[in-house]
């Protein structure tokens, strides 16, 4: 199996991986949008979408009814609608950039997923845990930050190309917000990598190594970084909300004052690409948070995964690891939604004030404190 895979030409491997990303993430984003609608409905005391059903599914006695109440077919109807709607381009837009923006939104969102390990399997021959990732590169997190932040270009492009004041204002706000919070985000993860990269070892920014660091035996080895570095986790979390443009940092969209923000002039499939990109960012962001601070695929703090799956076949252990990881990511995405339907939006000046006057100094102070602490501990 592995040999067969490795013997395939490189371009074919890359193509299969690319298709796999699209085939997994786009349904996942769709499921997130459905979850969003259901969670919002439940929080507001409504049952949520629960009517649409395909006739032949209605014949399944219990399960069909369950799927109907869950609103699964609303999701499919939505997706189908987006695909078959007329491709409208308003007359006043810059056609080239207008069409380019949704593509630019989707590409970085999907690209970052390649370097995020989503599970691990036990290599019985070498007696080590190996990551399940499309590309387990040493610069892991750097790729996520570098490529992920390219997403802001799509918002700027969309706002600019729409040639209309509300999208433009939305995109200006979004770009300022993303740039402000990226600083705190990057500074907040530095203590994690200072801790992982002990002097003498090879330097790495790999997300897999971060999880390995949290799966060591002993009290300090098995502690998730959320407990070791709560301030880092908190700053990263707040910055993550801002980076993914989620409430309460919903500046680019802020439909109350900006109509629809940067995608006001967009409709049909192009709009849905922005939508998918937002959820893909959310999924990757949640995944990175889980890997960095919540122990990745380790089921519980101080309970590493490797001894649990060492005796099992590699594929089963891998599936268990993926299930644990996805479960954590799903919980985290639920948290995103829970916060969204709880909090109102910050004012723009509040967003800037929090970002520059509170979060950034906190992140710097946190970095300095942990630098000194880690220097003393690892001397």
């Amino acid at each position, binding site marked *: 199996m592995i040999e067969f895979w490795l013997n395939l030409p490189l371009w074919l491997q890359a193509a299969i991986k690319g298709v796999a990303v699209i085939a997994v993430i786009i349904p996942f984003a769709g499921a997130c949008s459905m979850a969003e609608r259901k969670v919002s409905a439940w929080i507001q*005391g*409504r049952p949520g979408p629960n009517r649409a059903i395909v006739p032949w599914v209605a014949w399944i006695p219990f399960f069909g009814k369950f799927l109907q109440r869950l609103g699964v077919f609303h999701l499919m109807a939505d997706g189908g609608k987006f695909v078959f709607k007329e491709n409208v381009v308003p007359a006043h837009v810059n056609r080239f950039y207008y069409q380019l923006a949704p593509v630019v939104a989707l590409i970085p969102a999907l690209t970052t997923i390649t370097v995020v390990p989503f599970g691990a399997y036990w290599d019985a021959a070498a007696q080590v845990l190996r990551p399940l990732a499309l590309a387990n590169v040493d610069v892991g997190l750097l790729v996520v930050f570098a490529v992920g932040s390219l997403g802001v270009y799509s918002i700027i492009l969309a706002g600019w190309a729409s040639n209309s004041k509300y999208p433009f204002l939305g995109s200006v706000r979004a770009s300022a917000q993303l740039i402000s919070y990226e600083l705190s985000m990057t500074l907040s993860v530095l203590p994690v990598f200072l801790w992982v990269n002990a002097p003498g070892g090879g330097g790495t920014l790999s997300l897999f190594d971060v999880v390995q660091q949290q799966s060591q035996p002993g009290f300090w080895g098995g502690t998730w970084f959320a407990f070791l570095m709560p301030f880092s986790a908190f700053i990263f979390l707040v910055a993550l909300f801002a980076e993914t443009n989620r409430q309460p940092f919903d500046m680019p969209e802020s439909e109350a004052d900006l109509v629809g923000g940067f995608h006001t002039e967009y409709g049909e499939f192009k709009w849905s690409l922005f939508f998918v990109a937002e959820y893909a960012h959310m999924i990757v962001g949640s995944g990175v948070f889980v890997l960095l601070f919540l122990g990745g695929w380790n089921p519980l703090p101080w309970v590493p995964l490797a001894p649990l799956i060492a005796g099992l076949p590699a594929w089963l252990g891998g599936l268990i690891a993926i299930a644990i990881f996805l479960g954590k990511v799903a919980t985290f995405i639920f948290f995103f939604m829970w916060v969204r339907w*709880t909090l109102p939006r910050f004012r723009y000046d509040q967003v800037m004030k929090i970002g520059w006057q509170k979060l950034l100094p906190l992140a710097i102070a946190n970095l300095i404190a942990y630098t000194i602490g880690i220097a003393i501990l690892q001397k």
Partner: protein
Amino acid sequence: MAVIQVSRKPLTFAERTYLPQIYGGLKITLKHLFAPKDTLEYPEQRPAIPPHYRGVPTLVKDPHGREKCVSCQLCEFVCPPKAIRITPGEVPEGSGREHVEKGPQAFDIDMLRCIYCGLCEEVCPEEAIFLQNQYSMSGYSREEMVNHKDRLYEIGGTLPDEHFKWDKKKAAAEEAAHGHH
């Protein structure tokens, strides 16, 4: 008028971090997440209609299943949108109700015109027309939206009667006839 100076307390540090408030809000929304839903799922679940609801106007019969309308046409005259059209007729001989003299031969209410004002019910001297609790009317054609007499009696049903006015009149007339002798 005395001016009351209200001192605005500065926010505490905890409040300025937003976190206690966010935590409180999350607790509230989590409670609502699991609370029973408020939505009435309409076609399957129907709302409880309060008494004296002004729904579709109907004709009612008395507890003995007799027609109450005497086709006086007061409702037809009072109806602001002119939705009611009555064709008066005679009460047939041998029915035991000849003394009522008149009954509607046809009674049409055009529900496309009806404004559910309830004036017909208010004006009726016979308590024969009532706005009852049917709140949804639909049809595929204009003709379907006109309620004819049989349909009006079908959705109207029977309502209790306190007076039995025409029975009393008949009895009184017979009494008077006997008393004369």
